[in-house]
């Protein structure tokens, strides 16, 4: 228990959770205020998921990753648990809104995009460093939301975030990203920062 508390504090989890929750509440109230429809539009659902993922991104590395690596225990299961917990939190919070006046759904889309975006973020954290891990998820998702969904397989794969929940190609892409990110991050951990930013937190 002691370890968990220290870990959560070093990863600044409370502030990240508060940010993610606050952002969701903001999106929820914006939709409630501006729309008469109870079902939230898909672009807004995807943006909310992206926002929550971005808020949780900061927890992927601590104040000193190099020091973390010297720990006398295995990081692998802990990193997996960290990502799974993040996935659970994102999906549970969004799916809980289905009982309220502004419903974020459909459920399969929330599950798919949460898994895919978290995986992509973890993959980027493992390759580019946590500070830059949001670049690709943000750019990719914004483009995917805006472009009309093409029929060809490549188009469905490239705009997987905004595809219909029953789309197999999009689901496969998300699963690949999720497992790719999970494995890369669990094995390698966050990438070492550039020397100029070695002291960052």
């Amino acid at each position, binding site marked *: 228990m002691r370890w968990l508390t220290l870990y959560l504090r070093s990863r600044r989890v409370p502030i990240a959770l508060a940010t993610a929750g606050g952002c969701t509440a903001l999106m929820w109230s914006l939709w409630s205020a*501006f729309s008469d429809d109870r079902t939230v539009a898909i672009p807004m659902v995807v943006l909310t998921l992206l*926002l929550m993922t*971005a808020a949780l991104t900061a927890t992927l590395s601590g104040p000193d990753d190099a020091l973390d690596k010297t720990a006398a225990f295995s990081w692998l299961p802990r990193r997996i648990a960290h990502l799974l917990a993040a996935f659970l939190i994102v999906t549970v919070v969004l799916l809980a809104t289905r009982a309220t006046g502004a419903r974020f759904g459909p459920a399969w889309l929330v599950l798919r995009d949460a898994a895919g975006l978290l995986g992509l973020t973890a993959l980027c954290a493992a390759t580019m460093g946590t500070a830059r891990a949001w670049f690709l998820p*943000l*750019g990719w998702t*914004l483009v995917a*939301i805006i472009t009309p969904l093409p029929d060809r397989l490549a188009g469905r794969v490239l705009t997987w975030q905004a595809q219909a929940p029953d789309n197999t190609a999009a689901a496969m892409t998300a699963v690949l990203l999720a497992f790719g990110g999970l494995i890369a991050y669990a094995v390698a951990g966050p990438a070492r920062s550039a020397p*100029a*930013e070695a002291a*960052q937190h």
Partner: protein
Amino acid sequence: MTRILNIELRRSAALGTALILFVTGVLLLATDRAIFTTGWIQLAMTQRLYLAVLWPLALAAGAWQASREHRSKVAELFASTPRPQAHRVLPTLIAMAVAVLSGYLTMGIAGGLWIIGTAEYLPVAAFAVTAVGVLALIAAVWFGLAIGRLLPWRVTAPALGIAGMGLLLLIPGATRPHGWLALVFSPIYEMNMPGAYAAVPGRASIAQTLWLAALAVTALVLLASSGWRTRMAALLPVALGAALAITVMPHQNRFVNDAIDPVARELTCTEDAPRVCVSRIHSGLLTEVTAPAREGLAVLAKLPNAPTTVHEDTTIYFPDSYPPRRADTVLLDVETGDDAHLADRTDVWMKVVAGAFASPPDCEMSVDPADRIAAAHWLIGSEPAKASEDFEPEDSERAVQLWNDLRRLPADKAKARVVALRQAAVNCTADIGLFSKSTP
């Protein structure tokens, strides 16, 4: 100053920002080329539409750049230097503005290279639309810098980007039914799918410029400020800009969507007969249209009182305006394809022949599409295609049947029916079809 600016251009996020804007913009342009290939104003408007992605990215890029000192843990050190805050941020401001400007303009150049062969008509409005787009990006990146300095957290940059896109997506819904308000505050509003004769009125661009300039000034005040009092003063330009922009913008919905450029719609013609005319926006396609259009006229020459000229069909709707109809003129739809050249080049002569059997638009007894296709193909002497993009599938099927019926008739009788159909089309008396009782 120049030296620091040079360093800043190389060592800040400027280079990456320009590159990301350029690559994202070109990718977006490439997804649907038919929207912008018609001409320069269409390209400028499509670029503005894609600000839906580029604008949030510029916001995020600004916030990311602003968190640099915090990330490198030198904020306190730099604050101790005896130089005013405004001095220190100026090179960064210029570098980021240059970055978004060059990213946006190179995206435009990439699109321009695609259409440069056929796009000839270049209205001043195209430059105004692009200038507003650049200003929108500069305002975004500066605003991002300001917010990033105020809230130097890791989540600020992505959250600001997402909020930017959420804002752009929500503005139309939040301002409904006052669409003109959305036009003031959203640089992407009413920029989707511009028609061939699209225009952006100068007043709309001026109002948007006022608002975006106010946003940029606010960002500058926020960046130069150090206390909460000056930060509150930053609200002043925003309020002033919004008020001015709302006053300048005409309070009229669909202001840009309904705008038509009459110059783009004027006809430009071939010098020699038989005359073929296209609108000025399509003037680069004239040589491509001329040959097949003349082939179509040659086929029609078999008819008595045959049409002798082909004009582009410059019909517009809302408000409806039709080109003048004359018996000696065939109207032809001209469209630019994905490759910036004439779309459906092989169908043009068939469309010209079929166009001779079209009735005026206000005609209540116009010719049945199946009759038109059958008569045209009888003149050409080939079987109608079973499926065509220009006609309904059932019309195409019936046309094949009618065409077979025509062929079974003796040539002179069939010709008489076709001639009668043409007369009926011109006189707007087509309650009779090719094979109805009153035709001989």
